[in-house]
């Protein structure tokens, strides 16, 4: 595995994703994807059916502060005497919404910039990449703290922030792929025939890049959820939205540790972990299907969002 691939998570030039990958075959061939998908379906159902599934309300005090897990409340009560199982169910909705929305913003922004940059090349490319580079080096959590303080703590802002932080990765990835696609015969033919840029991009480039984008989006959702949990924990989450991250924050702030109320902290954390893992499993498998040689890019994403090592051609 060369550093080139390490850093850029580049799809090698040979992968032609016009080949359709049947979904069922995909799931069968990649059992981890199947597991991941199954878990996600379960959580999605919980999120959608939330209010009907939850035994108690999200504000309903049903016992003492930090009530221990016992029969009607298998996961115990939180710092306000609210049933934790119910909170988990209600929280699923928020966590998943934030995850998807945040990833969506990152994909749309990053995708657009990546496509523009990769397709037009030249000075536009250079300029956009410099901007990207700056965003890559900003310490993301610190940036988050500052921006949450500036813009206020609301779900909408958190989603925007997540998008702002992670678009860079998508941009670079898609740019690389677009560059490859741009050189392909059918694109060159279309250009020779005088097709407009927009037409070429939408008809030829986009379909090629889309599967990759989708695979990355799945992984991006995992990141977004991770970030939302982190932000909530630092007290910057939306006070009106009881996400899993907020459950951990509430417990921590109200001395759950000293109290010994592990039930207020373990379940939400596990829920987040399981969902993130499921997304990772699904996304990794999708990546594998598209590019068998790629195995590690998703992990690197979180810690240094694909900072750009030079292309092999540059030093010469």
């Amino acid at each position, binding site marked *: 595995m060369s550093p080139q691939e390490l850093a850029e998570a580049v799809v090698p030039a040979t992968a032609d994703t016009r080949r359709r990958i049947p979904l069922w075959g995909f799931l069968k061939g990649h059992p981890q994807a199947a597991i991941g998908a199954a878990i996600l379906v379960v959580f999605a159902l919980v999120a959608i059916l939330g209010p009907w599934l939850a035994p108690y309300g999200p504000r309903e005090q049903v016992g003492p502060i930090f009530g221990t897990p016992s029969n009607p409340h298998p996961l115990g009560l939180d710092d*306000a005497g609210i049933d934790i199982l119910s909170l988990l169910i209600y929280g699923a909705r928020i966590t998943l919404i934030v995850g998807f929305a945040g990833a969506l913003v990152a994909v749309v922004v990053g995708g657009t910039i990546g496509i523009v940059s990769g397709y037009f090349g030249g000075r536009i490319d250079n300029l956009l990449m410099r901007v990207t580079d700056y965003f890559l080096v900003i310490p993301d959590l610190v940036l988050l703290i500052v921006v949450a303080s500036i813009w206020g703590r609301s779900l909408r802002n958190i989603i925007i922030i997540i998008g702002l932080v992670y678009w860079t990765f998508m941009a670079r990835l898609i740019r690389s792929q677009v560059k490859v696609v741009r050189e392909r015969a059918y694109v060159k033919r279309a250009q020779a025939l005088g097709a407009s840029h927009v037409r070429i991009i939408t008809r030829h480039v986009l379909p090629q890049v889309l599967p990759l984008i989708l695979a990355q989006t799945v992984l991006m959702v995992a990141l977004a959820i991770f970030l939302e949990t982190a932000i909530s924990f630092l007290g910057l989450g939306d006070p009106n939205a009881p996400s899993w991250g907020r459950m951990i924050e509430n417990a921590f*702030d109200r*001395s759950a540790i*000293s*109290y010994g109320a592990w039930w207020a902290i373990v379940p939400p954390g596990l829920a987040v972990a399981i969902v993130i893992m499921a997304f990772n499993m699904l996304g990794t498998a999708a990546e594998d299907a598209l590019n068998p040689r790629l195995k590690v890019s998703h992990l690197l994403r979180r810690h240094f969002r694909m900072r750009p090592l030079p292309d092999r051609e540059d030093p010469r």
Partner: protein
Amino acid sequence: MKRILALLMTLVLAAAIAACGGGESTTPGQGGDGGDATGAETAAAEAKPGGIFRLGTTSGPDSPNPFVAFSATSYIFFTNTYPTLVQYDEDFQLVGDWAESWETSEDGKVWTFKVKPGEWSDGTPLTAKDAAFTGSLIIEYGDGPAGTMAPYLTNAASVEAPDDSTVVITYEKAVANVLPQLQQLFILPQHVLEPLVGDKGKGLKKWDPVKGGQVGGGSFFIKEYDDKGTIILERNPGYYGEAPLVDAVGVTVYQNSDAMLAALDGGQLDSVDTVPPTLAEQYASNPKFQLQIGDSTFVYDIGFNSNPDKPKNKELLDPKVREALAMGVDRQKIIDTVLNGYGTPAATMFTPLSGEYLNTEIQPEPFDIAAGNAILDELGYAMGSDGVRTKPDGGTMEYEVILPESVEGIDRLFEIVQDGWGQMGVKITANKMDSTAAFEAIGAPDWKYLDFDIMMWDWVGYIDPEFMLSVVTCDQYGSWSDTGYCNPEYDELYAQQGVTLDPAVRKDIVWEMQEILYRDKPYIQVAQKQSIVAYTDQWTNLTDPFLAGLSKIPWEVIGQKAS
């Protein structure tokens, strides 16, 4: 706010002591000494000298410079390392500290203090000249760099030292609370500070007192200073009063209660300043620890923008609307959930710690959703189909509430109020931000108090009511005001109480002021948060388990158990 916190600490301690006398504190379940708050009964002889007393706090000092500091803990260090003329004793009476005695002139404008001999920690003699120097600095630069100390010499014209042991303060007019003010006037070392004052006092704020070792003149001096770690105070051999039994006192700052309590449990601390209410019972039933619970001056409040010029949501200016809303606040549930029972309902800004100044005739509004609904119905705010009331001239009763994140338990407080008001057809959403932003948002735009509607916060006052009464005066716009309340009638009474020397008359004025506030309701006072302090029982005579910013801890009797 944070400075007030310091006072809180002191008051908390003082409260603990006074509470013992007032019967409000409970020291559940331990036998032996330490349970009784008044150390007077327990023999002081049982303590042995030496050792370090280790304290834990979650609010750290922000600066060792009195002209810069705002946080409560900073004031605690000042009280113990700089001389003050007078201090509160265990019964909350002001007694002489550095001052041996004093007299007032007939017109009340000239105060003469006789001060005890002593030395700064570097051996330089402590004399009245240090007081004159400090006082003159404050008078001259009180509008500028010395602003933080200006409140302690209000209306003072001069501070002089005719000889080494006499301090003379001359006031422009008779001030009612000279002594409570002087209790916070920290005397600074002239020989250290004078060369650093700088042009127009510019050097005052840049002064780093601990660089090269702090020169202290109180019972201790700061030996080591790490505002995010541990600060160690060592005994000042030249102290003018009775020497402390301990060799040193350490204060460790923790980011959160859990870490602090873990240290207490693990034997790395001897005492902590606050125990979260959720954990009080654990400590109460643990024989290794003593718990002291008592009144404090911490009061949660809901504040309404009271600026009549505010353009939107003017219905919130109507005292009847506020009264209805007040009936939607389930104080008992708040006390049970947020404070785990360790609190009392509040009706005014004062708590029993303010003694006779607390207007006990005022009762908190009853929690009565039906009655609140009736009032709002009568006023013409029809309930909409979605459960939110509509206003006759359009719009609904939906508001944003500013929440400062630094207030403990504010989330749950908000949620309970939200539920209650929801049942009355008033919808609120939280706009949580850090304290700086919150305060800005309240004053927006530009300290004109036009934008915000509702906020929730807390106040921690002094024992003397002057400060708390001042925060709702007109000239606190842009300063301490967090409601934009401005009432000339009230301001007049405020000025009056400031110069009324007869305590009984003053008390009447203060009571009347509380009635006005209750009627106008710039605040709905919610609940007093009691103070819960814990310490290990290896120490004895701990009437004040924590370093107080205001009241003097009897360090001369606190010590390790002899047996």
